[in-house]
């Protein structure tokens, strides 16, 4: 299977791809389109959208597969021209339960019955917290490497971050971090840019130890991402995807 085409004469197809690009694999914190999970987007005349996706193994955790399916469907339904959205997972042990659950708007427990040990809210929260920390670590490391002093950066406001959007890399890191900044509490431009997961300001003296402790989160996520990419390539004989942004 070749890499899916994201271009079409129908502008609505690009709209859908863009929406799907906002959905992440919770374990990897990478978008489902960049990972190569989404294979096809089709649109019926009246705004009926169908999306197909696949995962690196037959056994990939059904809970995460379910979350991705739910999120994709919700994102597509945000488009005002969409009448219905159907998201279909292929070649997975749980295709029936996942596809039925996602497209009928069931909860994970409703979809899996006795097999599920609970709903996904708590798991979702855990991974949102992780994503907050690993995005924060990536941005802080970037700024420190660029020569910003730790004693300065802990006092920066969110507004100040926008001044640092001088390169594409910095822009992406800042955008990704701010997209999760709410995990550390409600904020505006005058709020501190960097706080702990509980909303506590970071201290300059404790910053190296703090970074050290959250770095393993990013190491882990990157490792998972690398493994999933390899397995996807091997499983579907597809071409490796290299950091394309949609």
């Amino acid at each position, binding site marked *: 299977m070749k890499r899916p085409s994201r271009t079409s004469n129908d502008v609505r197809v690009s709209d859908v791809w863009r929406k799907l690009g906002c959905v992440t694999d919770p*374990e990897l914190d990478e978008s489902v389109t960049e990972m190569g999970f989404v294979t096809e987007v089709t649109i019926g005349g009246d705004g009926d959208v169908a999306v197909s996706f696949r995962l690196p*193994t*037959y*056994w*990939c*955790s*059904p*809970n995460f597969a379910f979350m991705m399916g739910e999120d994709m469907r919700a994102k597509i339904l945000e488009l005002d021209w969409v009448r219905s959205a159907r998201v279909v997972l292929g070649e997975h*042990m*749980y295709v029936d339960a996942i596809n039925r659950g996602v497209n009928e708007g069931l909860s994970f427990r409703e979809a899996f019955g*006795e*097999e*599920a*040990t*609970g709903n*996904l809210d708590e*798991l979702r929260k855990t991974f949102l917290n*992780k994503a907050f920390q690993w995005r924060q670590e990536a941005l802080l490391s970037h700024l420190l490497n660029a020569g910003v002093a730790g004693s300065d950066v802990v006092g920066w406001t969110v507004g100040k971050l926008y001044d640092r959007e001088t390169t594409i890399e910095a822009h992406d890191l800042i955008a990704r971090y701010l997209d999760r900044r709410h995990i550390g509490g409600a904020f505006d431009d005058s709020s501190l840019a960097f706080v702990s997961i509980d909303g506590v300001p970071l201290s300059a003296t404790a910053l190296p130890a703090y970074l*050290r402790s959250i*770095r*393993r*989160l990013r*190491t*882990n996520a*990157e*490792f*998972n991402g*690398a*493994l999933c990419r*390899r*397995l996807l*390539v*091997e*499983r579907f004989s597809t071409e490796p995807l290299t950091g394309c942004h949609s």
Partner: protein
Amino acid sequence: MYKARNGEEIFVIDCHTHFWDGSPANQKNVHGKQFIECFFNYHTGLSPKEELWPKEKFEKYDEKTLYDDLFVKGYVDIAILQPTYLNDFYVNGFNTTEQNSVLKKNHPDRFILNGSFDPRDGTKGIEYLHALKETYDIKGVKLYTAEWKGESKGYKLTDKESYRYLEWCEKLGIKNIHVHKGPTILPLNRDAFDVADVDDVATSFQNLNFIIEHCGLPRLDDFCWIATQETNVYGGLAVAIPFIHSRPAYFAHIISELLYWLGPDKLLFGSDYGIWTPKWIIDKFMAYELPKDVAAETGVKLDLEAKKKILGLNAARLYDIDIAAHKAKFGGEAKKEKALAGGWFR
């Protein structure tokens, strides 16, 4: 035995090997087919090109192939056979203790035979554990907490029944508990990757060692945290270590995190044979140096001392292996073989 550049002979214990039958003839259903195919994707995805096997060989290899790959070509001195039963997927099981026992019988000094238990098997399972001890004198077990069983989609080490089994392990002297907390290779329930249950039992069972296979990947972050707090928790490097070839930068980060949080005394080498063969992994591992920036940032060292511990000394401690005695024995055997071959090699 691996000969280091300084001439030192390094004793190698491969803590994670298998002797499986994933061939179509043994597959019971589509799950069995998907299972071996997923393994094969790991093999093709992370092996160097020149080390790739044909699919048929990967599905089922014979005793001689395994022996040569490990002990003749692969520097390994002793291999630990970890079973993966999978009786629901394979007619005769995938890789059972009984299948593996053939190797132990033919080469008693080369193999350590591990067993397995499933706490959901009740009293019958306890009897089987006793039988494994009596028949094979096992010193370790391999557990899959995520394995399906009837209605159950996995269990936790903290379940009451698990405690009962672990108490028996303690009594029987089965002191090494290898727990698969790694990438998805089985249908999993939603907590299958969770390593929190290890934390609890490691505290409760101080006489047992808990070796977390695959270092809790894909939850390395949680695992490091737990392992730091418990003195009897170890990390098995299978699946993590092949990244040394395909993604050396990731490997640098992973191994440095592990060295930082657990230290060099708590990590165990495993090739995961037949997914990967030990020769190329050990060659690359011995030649490997941590990038300067990673070493500087974490303050850890992956020097010859650390490598010796990871490749053999740590496992020898867990399994009471007398390295000097084995070196003498294997060295003597090698000389005898050379003499029989007419000294052509000298």
